[in-house]
């Protein structure tokens, strides 16, 4: 039994250490989406799990939304298991801000597989998208009108369609007002150039990790 556990752990370590394999999971039924930052992927035990709803507290402007760009880069760029490229959807409720696509592209996102829309009520407006499995990764950025029933709906369809649905909030999440439908909940803070992620709910609850979001090296880009 001990040997089996060690072998399992070793194989997981081996998978994580190989930078080419971006999906590391010992459970063949659980496909994960990683972001390519080693400390964060290790903290997340390989990445965010498909078929789940995940909620993140990231104040707008602290720079941590770049993590989402990295997750989408993995999803659209074919670095998940089986080299599959996924269609991704970003839904924003911000009336005064839009994505700046070249920056997302520079972060690695394939713009051809990314769609964007503005909606304050995503469940009402985009219901047919959640029911369909076309978009494998959906990010709801600061949705204004999202009730617990809506989160239940999202969670059910994420499971059914094997999607990853991420809700981003502009304020830190509290464990007291927990969203029971989100399998994982995280807060990301920034201090002195480094980021700290704290798990509010899930298997990693109350654990923390720090990491830096890398800026691509110009030398590596062969300019």
């Amino acid at each position, binding site marked *: 039994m001990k040997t089996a556990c060690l072998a399992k752990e070793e194989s997981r370590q081996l998978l994580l250490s190989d930078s080419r394999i971006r999906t590391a999971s010992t459970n063949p039924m659980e496909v994960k989406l990683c972001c390519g930052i080693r400390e964060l992927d290790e903290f997340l035990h390989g990445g965010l799990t498909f078929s789940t709803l995940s909620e993140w507290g990231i*104040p*707008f*402007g*602290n*720079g*941590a*939304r*770049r993590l*989402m*760009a990295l997750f989408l*880069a993995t999803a*659209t*760029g074919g670095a998940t298991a089986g080299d599959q490229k996924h*269609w991704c*959807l970003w839904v924003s409720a*911000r*009336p*005064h*801000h*839009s*994505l*700046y*696509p*070249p*920056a*997302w*592209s*520079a*972060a*690695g*996102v*394939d*713009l*051809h597989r*990314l*769609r*964007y*829309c*503005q*909606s304050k009520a995503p469940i009402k*407006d*985009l219901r*047919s*998208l959640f029911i*369909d499995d*076309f978009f494998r990764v959906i990010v709801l950025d600061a949705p204004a009108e999202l009730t617990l029933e809506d989160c239940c709906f999202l969670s059910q369809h994420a499971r059914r369609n094997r999607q990853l649905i991420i809700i981003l909030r502009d304020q830190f999440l509290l464990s007291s007002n927990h969203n029971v439908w989100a399998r994982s909940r995280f807060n990301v803070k*920034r201090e002195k150039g480094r980021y700290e992620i704290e798990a509010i709910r899930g298997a990693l609850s109350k654990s923390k990790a720090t990491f830096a979001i890398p*800026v*691509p090296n*110009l030398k590596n*880009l*062969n*300019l």
Partner: protein
Amino acid sequence: MQKNLFSTVHSNTSGPCFLAISSSANNGFDTGRILSPRVMKWSEEVQLIDLSSTHRYWAQKAMEDGLTFDQMIERLIKDYFPPQTIGVIANHPWQAVLYLKTFSARACGTLLNLSSPFGRSLKKDLSWEAWSETFQEIDDHFLVFGSKSKLSKDKKSKSQLSTFLKTAQRMSLHTPAHFHHGALDNDSNETSGIKRRFGDRVATLWDWTWTQIQGDTNDIGFPWKTQKLNEVPSVQRLLIHPIRNWEHIEPILCEDLDRLCQLRCWNSSERVVSLEWELFFSNSPTLSIPVLFRYPHALHREIGLHKTALLQAFHSWTSSLSKRLKQSLFHEDSQYLENDAIIEWKVVVKERLVIPPQHHSLFADDLSSPLARLRDLENSLPVQLSEFAHADDWTPEDSWKIQSTNSEKSLSKACSESADSPIDSPKSYLFQHLCRPLFIQNEPTPFISNEQDPYFEFKERVMRKWWQLAVSDDYVYDCFLHEDRKGRLLWIHKSTNKQLTINGVYG
């Protein structure tokens, strides 16, 4: 009202929208409806097609087949129109018709896009004969158009045209381009001078000849008249009991859509662009609800379920009802409107693409293709899904666009499914994009700081397109990253007169 709704909600008007086709055979008129439901008979040989409602669809089809939009239209003309058919595509219906004669005289190709370099050079070849002939043709249409356009009231247009041409001849201005100094510049003084001397009609048509106008044909005063089809599929429903809730409406409407599909005046190869759903209430005026599809929709394919049509009908019904209630908010009848019930309705296929029998394979969509699936999904949404693409430009404002698949550059990237790297932008711009934020503000806001000496990290200096600016404008601005007291990473622009504005947020 429906036309305005169309152009603002469901169509992509960022590309040229009007196609003038010259075809010797009469059956060219039926074929025009392959491209769009809005076809106007300009003359015996010329028809004008408004592509605004189907532009996005053809642009996507072009992308799937590895073509540009223009190449797609050219292929459709060659495959489905009679031989010797030629066409001109332009942002303005007048320009499309006007330059058709000049293009025809050149006899060099099937399709001309007036925005292309060749199209722009062709403007210099426009002759007074072509201009006056087209002027007289539009005169006839203004007569038919009646009082819908203020230009129709100009009764002296023929004599004014004659005076205008004589003046040009007297001044030895051999072509309209000579008359118009710098044919691509819009000199408002020129048009007002022409209006003063030669009248409203001449001045307006002169203005239309040179300026880049886009918009609904009603807004610009063009005498558009869509050719009506002989048979329009429609069904009527008299309700046994009045109803008001969607849960009761939906199954009955689904039945009516099935009945619509079974009518013999149209067939399953045709594609619906819009439906009109007219509701009759027990106590209030009729409400006409447009049910619009972003892409031509195969209604027959969803017989029994009509998921897409019902979703769009629901979105339109909800927004129409709430608009109606808002308008009557202070009206004494508002309480009746809220509780009013539907007693009857009529569903009409308002606009559709009509496919001649020999061309049934044109819309044989491969539903396994991701883009076809995405089109189907988008057809059921009330909001638009945008796709972004790079533009070959160094300025932040112009370095990207919402994908219209109308340019060859974006097309080549869009077609590449197996790119070695997901980074598509030219490498020379990559460094700039790395320095820029993930989110931009739609409108810059002034930057006000309480700090005595706020710290700014310099990112880049951007030179504006000085040739498009007035002499007094700033040609250069600097971009900085600034962290405010709330910890937000802001993208700040500083102009040469030291004005600071917030233009973006670093996520």
